[in-house]
């Protein structure tokens, strides 16, 4: 991608304008307020998918993001309900808890590669679900319900974010929150990938032994990447719990973990913004096909197979091929 600097800045500004101004304007004009919820979900899921993408970037197939999303949701819910924390504090807490957990889990399992890592992470999702069912603090299959909406956030007496419960349109507030986090998350990702660490991560993806032989600390790097990935998963899970005001062991299951992975594949593994596009397309595709009733899954998976045959390197690879031809 050799866009020059000005086009890149213009693209970012255009994107921000669309997300923060155009979308709310269009929604309030058309009166389709339900779209806020859809778009909020897309934004949150793309944060979690971005984490999965980062583990792909170091050459690991991660099907365990659902575990961290679930953990994040529970950490936030328990801190709010049992310990009276403010939601805004639980957000980083959930992320950090997941990151810490992922360091502990990652140290042994990141030694695995290829399918082994993929399968262990898949199992991890199941472990998280079973733990949520078995632990006393998570309230078993009944889950944690009626979590209050996020309260006001004020620093030095200045209210930065108003209390969500007092807002007329808490959907818009959640949308803005999710989208802001998504922008921040992808900015971090972009920065990370185009930094020295990003280049080192790419070397891991290609050949770990070679990278380690020329002095790259591979064990450290992959734990860091995995921790960042899980941090994103935890944060997105925490907001999900806040939006739905509830969390159950079945809130994030193996299917969700697989979907996070599919989002990355669909967008394209070689592109930082792949997960965002992939999530958008998959989520909206699924929603649009709702009208087809019982054929929904059939058409959806059929399209996915066709897409895979035509564009096995992701949707964003389309841009690349046309540019090459033109």
């Amino acid at each position: 991608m050799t866009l020059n600097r000005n086009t890149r800045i213009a693209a970012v500004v255009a994107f921000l304008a669309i997300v923060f101004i155009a979308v709310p304007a269009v929604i309030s004009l058309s009166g389709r307020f339900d779209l806020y919820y859809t778009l909020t979900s897309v934004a949150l899921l793309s944060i979690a998918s971005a984490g999965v993408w980062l583990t792909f970037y170091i050459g690991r197939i991660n099907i365990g993001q659902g575990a961290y999303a679930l953990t994040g949701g529970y950490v936030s819910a328990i801190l709010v309900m049992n310990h009276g924390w403010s939601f805004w504090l639980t957000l980083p807490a959930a992320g950090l808890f997941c990151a810490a957990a992922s360091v502990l889990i990652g140290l042994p399992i990141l030694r695995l590669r290829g399918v082994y890592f993929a399968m262990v992470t898949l199992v991890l999702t199941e472990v998280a679900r079973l733990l949520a069912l078995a632990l006393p603090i998570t309230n078993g299959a009944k889950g944690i319900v009626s979590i209050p909406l996020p309260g006001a956030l004020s620093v030095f007496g200045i209210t930065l974010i108003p209390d969500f419960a007092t807002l007329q349109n808490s959907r818009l507030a959640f949308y803005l929150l999710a989208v802001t986090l998504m922008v921040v998350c992808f900015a971090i990702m972009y920065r990370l990938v185009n930094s020295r660490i990003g280049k080192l991560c790419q070397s891991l993806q290609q050949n770990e032994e070679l990278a380690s032989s020329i002095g790259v600390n591979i064990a450290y790097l992959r734990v860091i990447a995995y921790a960042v990935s899980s941090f994103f998963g935890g944060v997105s899970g925490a907001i999900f719990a806040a939006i739905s005001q509830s969390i159950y062991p079945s809130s994030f299951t193996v299917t969700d973990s697989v979907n996070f992975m599919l989002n990355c594949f669909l967008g394209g593994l070689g592109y930082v913004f792949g997960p965002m596009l992939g999530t958008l397309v998959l989520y909206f595709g699924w929603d649009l096909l709702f009208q087809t009733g019982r054929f929904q899954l059939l058409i959806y998976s059929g399209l996915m197979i066709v897409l895979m045959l035509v564009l096995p390197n992701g949707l964003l690879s389309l841009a690349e091929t046309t540019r090459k031809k033109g």
Partner: protein
Amino acid sequence: MEQVIANGLYLGAQYALIALGLTLIFALMNVLNFAHGQMYVLGGFITYTVYGQLGLPFVVALLASGLTLAVIGALMEKFLFRTVIRRSHREESTMLLAAATAFFFDAVILLLFGEKQRGVPKIVKGVFNDAGIIMPYDRIVVGALAIVFIAAFVLYMQYSRVGRAMRALAQDRVAAQLMGVRVDRYSMIGFAMGAMLAGVVGGLLVTITGVNSGIGGPISIKAFLMVMIGGAGVVGGAIAGGFILGMMESVGLTVLREYGDVTYLVIFAALMVFLSVRPNGLMGKPWG
């Protein structure tokens, strides 16, 4: 105690047969077949239709399950996986394809057979009750059949020309090609055989546990577990993994009964610890 071991052996024989198909496909193509559980379910439903609905003999039903799945597997390899492997930059892209086919099978099964739990009449009546072991005869028959199939598979891989070609392929694809092995053809046969095994187990088990459209995913996860225990892509590993998981499940359900439904939690935790000590499973090759 004898009862627990007998249950474990019976479970293990079935599990090993499921894991064999998965590991075969993985060994030949480096594809993690997410749709394996769905293939199992499809096999179960075919046997249900042929044996339960149409009233044909069980053997015919089992053959029908195996053959249909073999054809499906061959087509999948030829038209889907081969194409994607050729076009994609990264090997992992096949996982999206595999997951998509899993969803696709789920949808097809749901449309064709509905969401109800289906069972068929017992193939053999009566219960074996001696020496402290209680076991219905049909379970013994199914367990024995599973062991026969496993033995047949191992012998076929070991001594037939096709089996030898496939083992060569699993060892080193390029070298096999240079020696004149028709790689494409044997990949297809291998995929078909893997799918066939899944179909056959589905057909066998429908006589005991019945089948419903939702169990595909959990079966896949169990198959993954077994393959991980034994080591991916190794026939012996899959068999060992199957029997170990069967035994652990059987023992776990008895020993951990008072702690509630934690058997699988314990199995998963044990697996994590085990894999951190032996990342390639019991017999797996190092995988990069």
